[in-house]
């Protein structure tokens, strides 16, 4: 439905976006994730045809966004970065203006404005001047404007920026409801937000796509790429732990033991898998410790959450290391 093919944007010597390709399937919600300045907005602007790429092209429901712009724009609902509005207009006036630009007949316009105002929680703000609305409410007006003509494709640049936690939940629910009959691409630099709404995620850093897939796929990738250590708290001194885990250290795993700061009878054990060896050492470790009859009060794999993965893949050094290899 929404396809980017090798999109590249160069500002003078700076490469803002580098050969980025992505496909958002019909009815899918795709999250576009990356730290600030990663090139998310630049990519989105190229995807909606408001910024021409240096190279590559984008299509929206089969229409090239530059050469067949009129057809593409009719199917697009777009919330630009920073959600620019006309401060002197009232909410209703603005929504009518947007509806007219999309050539919606008056009765349809009225009905749709009622619907989107309701869904975006604007019903009580329809007579208010936009310039006097809070940032969160302005954001909702921008969202309502993007939804107004019921476009099959929605591109939302940071839709939850400036919202309070309660409003974020509302917007998230709203976007979830759109799935199925709408194709949505939304960006954020906050992972949990994307995690809760998106079916699939593309992670962007320094203008390069560093990862993509469903959330589970990303978790799996994360584990495969960076075998996480296993952490345990064992009732034994360092030597006891070391002896118990000898079979594993002999196989190449790295062992670190620190005494528990509060109760000296306990030790904190971290076992890092050997490169190329089995990536999940939890079972082996549990077996080894129970074979040595040691009491264990905690055993878990170190943080494999997407947050850690996100931080890792967007780390400038790791991008520099993998650049070229991934392309």
């Amino acid at each position, binding site marked *: 439905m929404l396809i980017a093919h090798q999109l590249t944007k160069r500002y003078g010597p700076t490469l803002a976006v580098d050969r980025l390709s992505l496909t958002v399937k019909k009815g899918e919600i795709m999250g576009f994730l990356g730290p600030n300045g990663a090139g998310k907005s630049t990519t989105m602007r190229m995807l*909606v045809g408001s910024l*021409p790429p240096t190279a590559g092209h984008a299509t929206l429901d089969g229409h090239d966004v530059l050469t067949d712009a009129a057809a593409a724009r009719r199917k697009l609902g777009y919330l*630009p970065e920073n959600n*620019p*509005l*006309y401060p002197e207009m009232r909410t209703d006036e603005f929504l009518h*203006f947007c509806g*007219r630009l999309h*050539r919606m007949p008056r009765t349809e316009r009225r009905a749709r404005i009622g619907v989107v105002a309701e869904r975006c929680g604007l019903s009580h703000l329809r007579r208010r001047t936009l310039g006097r609305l809070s940032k969160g409410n302005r954001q909702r007006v921008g969202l309502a404007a993007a939804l107004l003509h019921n476009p099959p494709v929605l591109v939302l640049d940071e839709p939850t920026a400036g919202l309070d936690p309660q409003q974020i939940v509302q917007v998230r629910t709203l976007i979830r409801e759109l799935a199925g009959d709408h194709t949505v691409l939304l960006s954020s630099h906050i992972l949990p937000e994307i995690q809760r709404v998106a079916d699939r995620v593309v992670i962007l850093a320094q203008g390069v796509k560093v990862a993509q897939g469903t959330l589970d796929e990303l978790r799996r990738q994360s584990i495969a790429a960076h075998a996480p250590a296993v952490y345990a708290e064992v009732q034994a001194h360092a030597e006891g732990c070391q002896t118990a885990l000898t079979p594993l250290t002999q196989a190449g795993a790295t062992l670190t033991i620190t005494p528990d700061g509060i109760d000296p009878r306990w030790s904190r054990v971290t076992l890092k898998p050997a490169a190329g060896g089995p990536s999940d050492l939890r079972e082996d470790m549990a077996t080894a410790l129970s074979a040595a009859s040691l009491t264990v009060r905690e055993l878990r794999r170190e943080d494999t959450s997407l947050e850690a993965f996100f931080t890792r893949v967007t780390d400038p050094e790791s991008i520099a290391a993998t650049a070229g290899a991934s392309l």
Partner: protein
Amino acid sequence: MSAKLMLNPILTLARRELIGLFASPIGYVVLALFALGSGLVFAVGFAPGQPAAMTTTFDATVWLLVFLAPAISMRLLSEEMARGTLERLGTSPVSDTQVILGKWLAAMAFLALLFIPLLIQIGLLIWHGDPDFGPLLSGLLGVVLVGALYLAVGTFASAATENQIIAFLLAMFVIAGLTFLFFFLPESGVLPATVRAAVLYANVNRQFAEFNRGVIDLRNVLYFVSMTGLFLFLAVKLLESRRWR
């Protein structure tokens, strides 16, 4: 695209623009300045024994427009660029031509409002005297055409920059070229005869003088229509080029 479909977005844009024109204090300042300026000139000539004509007021109007027209037009696109709202228009199903025409049309509607004092003055002439309607109407058409051209120049200048002050100055600079420069340059005698004739032709005031004399010559009308069209076309090209920068 049918005419109606082409026109609808233009009117929508023009309508929104008028809301913007009246939301800013500049609109009211311009209206007041023109009412005052044209009123003063009219009042001086509005006396027993003076000819019942608007020629002096119309001349003054053309001069007042040199800086009032840029003041009206400077915000048209600059403001949308600075606010970022132009991106919203750029991703709506409207063309750059429609955006420019909508903006210019809004400025023209504002010009109609600006000229209300002129209509009142004409009414006073009719009430107290016996004016010749020919020059009155042709002069009125003349100032509207001058206004249309200046606002087209202003729209062009506004499409060039997101800074309203620069848009104002640029428009005034171009308009000054069309009036002062093209007046003094031929006078100076440094130009070859053919160039001199061309420059004289391009001088706005000379073209307007014919209307103010009571003559509606197709050639003069064509001058204003084509110059207005030229600047609007340049404005569209400028707006298009913005996407490629």
